[in-house]
């Protein structure tokens, strides 16, 4: 049994693969093809590269419908579906709000009320017209922009997993910035799956809980890391696209599901949702396990929905 580790800096994060198999040369060959696919997707989906397909779309879609590639179109369709399933808590049009709250390049600042209202008028997946027959995308409002940051990393990991499986890989762990990961098969010594620890949102040095994944993805989100203090309260860098304020839902969410893209999107959406709404969303996706942490006046409340149950074996 041989092991190959590989890494790539893309999408403003670090992707890493851990691959097990009989032939290191072939493991690396399959890994390189999958990494190249992530790089290709970065070039296609980057919000900051002016030649990316997303940038071209953002530059023109408020003037006229823009035709996009079939793969990007089906990704945007998926994003619209998840937007519906989460009652708007997941929204790839949140860019203008992020900018107005100063989270695009800075640590954030409280905006003027008219700025926030103005940004809200440019936000909302319901203002994006997807035309299946023409495969075009159009914005109903000028100044709108699609930013696939909350779904791109999961999508890239999911596509990389398809490439690795096609290359004959049967045992691998992939992750992007340690927040979204995908397991192929099991590690050589552990038929239960890949053990994953989740750290405490209030204290990184403490382990909150752990689980294991096998032919399954896992994504963890928390509004910590970037944010600012106001009135004795911490305001994090995840914005609720419906209200236009930083999220007030879970302080940490972890989602396990066969699709890394869905994990990535739902773990973000859960941060903007109340307990009951979160439960309803989990029930809409077959095979989904979730863990949410809520802060109840200083006391930590942990809500696990099948999170510690054994993974589905029929994947």
């Amino acid at each position: 049994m041989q092991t190959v580790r590989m890494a790539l800096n893309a999408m403003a994060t670090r992707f890493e693969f851990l691959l097990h198999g009989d032939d290191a040369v072939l493991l690396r060959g399959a890994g390189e093809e999958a990494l190249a696919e992530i790089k290709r997707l970065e070039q296609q989906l980057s919000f900051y590269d002016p030649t990316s397909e997303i940038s071209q779309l953002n530059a023109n879609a408020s003037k006229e419908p823009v035709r996009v590639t079939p793969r990007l179109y089906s990704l945007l369709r998926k994003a619209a579906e998840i937007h519906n399933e989460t009652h708007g808590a997941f929204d790839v049009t949140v860019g203008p709000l992020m900018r107005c709250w100063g989270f695009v390049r800075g640590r954030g600042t409280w905006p003027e009320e008219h700025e926030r209202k103005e940004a809200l008028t440019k936000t909302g997946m319901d203002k994006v017209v997807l035309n299946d027959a023409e495969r075009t995308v159009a914005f109903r409002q000028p100044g709108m922009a699609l930013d696939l940051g909350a779904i791109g990393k999961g999508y890239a990991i999911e596509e990389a997993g398809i490439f690795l499986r096609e290359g004959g890989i049967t045992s691998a762990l992939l992750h992007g910035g340690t927040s979204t990961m995908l397991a192929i098969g099991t590690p050589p010594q552990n038929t239960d799956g890949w053990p994953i620890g989740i750290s405490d949102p209030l204290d990184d040095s403490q382990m909150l809980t752990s689980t294991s994944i096998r032919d399954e993805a896992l994504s963890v989100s928390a509004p910590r890391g970037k944010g600012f203090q106001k009135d004795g309260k911490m305001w994090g860098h995840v914005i609720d696209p419906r209200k236009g304020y930083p999220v007030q839902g879970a302080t940490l969410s972890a989602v396990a599901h066969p699709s890394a893209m869905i994990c990535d999107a739902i773990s973000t959406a859960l941060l903007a949702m109340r307990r009951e709404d979160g439960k309803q969303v989990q029930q809409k996706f077959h095979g989904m396990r979730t863990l949410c942490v809520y802060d109840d006046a200083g006391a930590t409340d942990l809500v696990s929905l099948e999170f510690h149950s054994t993974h589905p074996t029929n994947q």
Partner: protein
Amino acid sequence: MSKHTVSRRAFLMGSAALSGAGLVRAANIKTRLWPGNRNDVQCGIIGYGPQGRDITATLARVPGAQVAAICDTYGPMLRRAQRDAPEATRHEDYREILNNPDIQAIIVATPTHLHRDIAVNALQAGKNVYCEAPMASSIEDAKAIARAARDATGQIFQVGQTYRSNPQHRSVFQFMRSGAIGKPAMARGQWHAKESWRRASPSADRVRELNWRLDPAITTGLIGEAALLQMDVAYWVLGELPASVHGFGQIMAWEDGREVPDTIQAIFEFPSGLHMMFDATLASSFDEAYEAYYGSDSTILFRDRGKAWMFKEVDAPMLGWEVYARTDRFYKETGIALLANATQLDAQNVDPTEDDPNVETPLWYALQEFMDNHAFGPYPPAANWERGLEATAVAITANQAIMERAQRDIDPASYTLG
């Protein structure tokens, strides 16, 4: 084939120009004509590896193009094709696509050594052909394709030397040809990556097929498969083809039984006396890919798919537009950015010091030129069969010199059909 009928797109572009709106409007017209316009050029993609996929994704955004059929001999590639282009038919035998009278254009993106039969058969079937570079892995094959392209009058043949169609390269080309670097001294280029070039598959037969780049009998090596587009720019801006090449090759990183060097250096001697050194490696990604042209007044650096900067000597004459130009710092050097359309951007109220928001990739411009040729041509494209034969002949000879660690003269007869 309907290449002689005026397409709706051609008509609209013509009328926009007549109405005085100018070509700036063409960018807006393109989306309204999409998709499924029956005048769209029906394209068949042969070979669905990374390049075939890139071409398919790019054609989806090029006006007037429709990917109608995709061929590959390997199941997983056809499954990718289905996800990337659901409306295209899928084939394991490319002749099915050649036999389809609705297909007007064939894009050849197979491994290099398989280009010949497909390109020649496609031309003989009356199709317009876009053939990836290098055109072939032997000079004999390259000449067979070139001959078929020359003889196919009334048909389009374009080779994938994409920088020839890139507006940014064209702009810097004019600039260099006007003598901006002074008296040329030398040129240097590099292509650096950290990757093994190995490809994997669960099937052993397939592994052999996939790893054609590492098969010494058929590969053109790093100088052909990695460096050709950059070297093609050299022949273009220098206006001459090398007379000889001295090659070196080593295996420095990937000792996995391969015989094809993972690290190479080649020194090209041009008839004017100018020498160009090119090095390529799979062992280190440092500083990626660029070319530099050194002269008595300045050095011009190309990198990032067509961006360019000029580094002036202190005693060089002042250029009129220099004071308005954007400068970028490169450690202790200051480069003047050479932008293709600075004045046009200024007219559109776009700050010329910003990156152009309308810029596309070199592959997009090359495929757009190929599609435009269907509407307005046929005319010889910038990257025609002659340019393809020349660049391929240099690459093949240079690869032989690298494999032999020797100096080789390049037979001028290899550049032409005689």
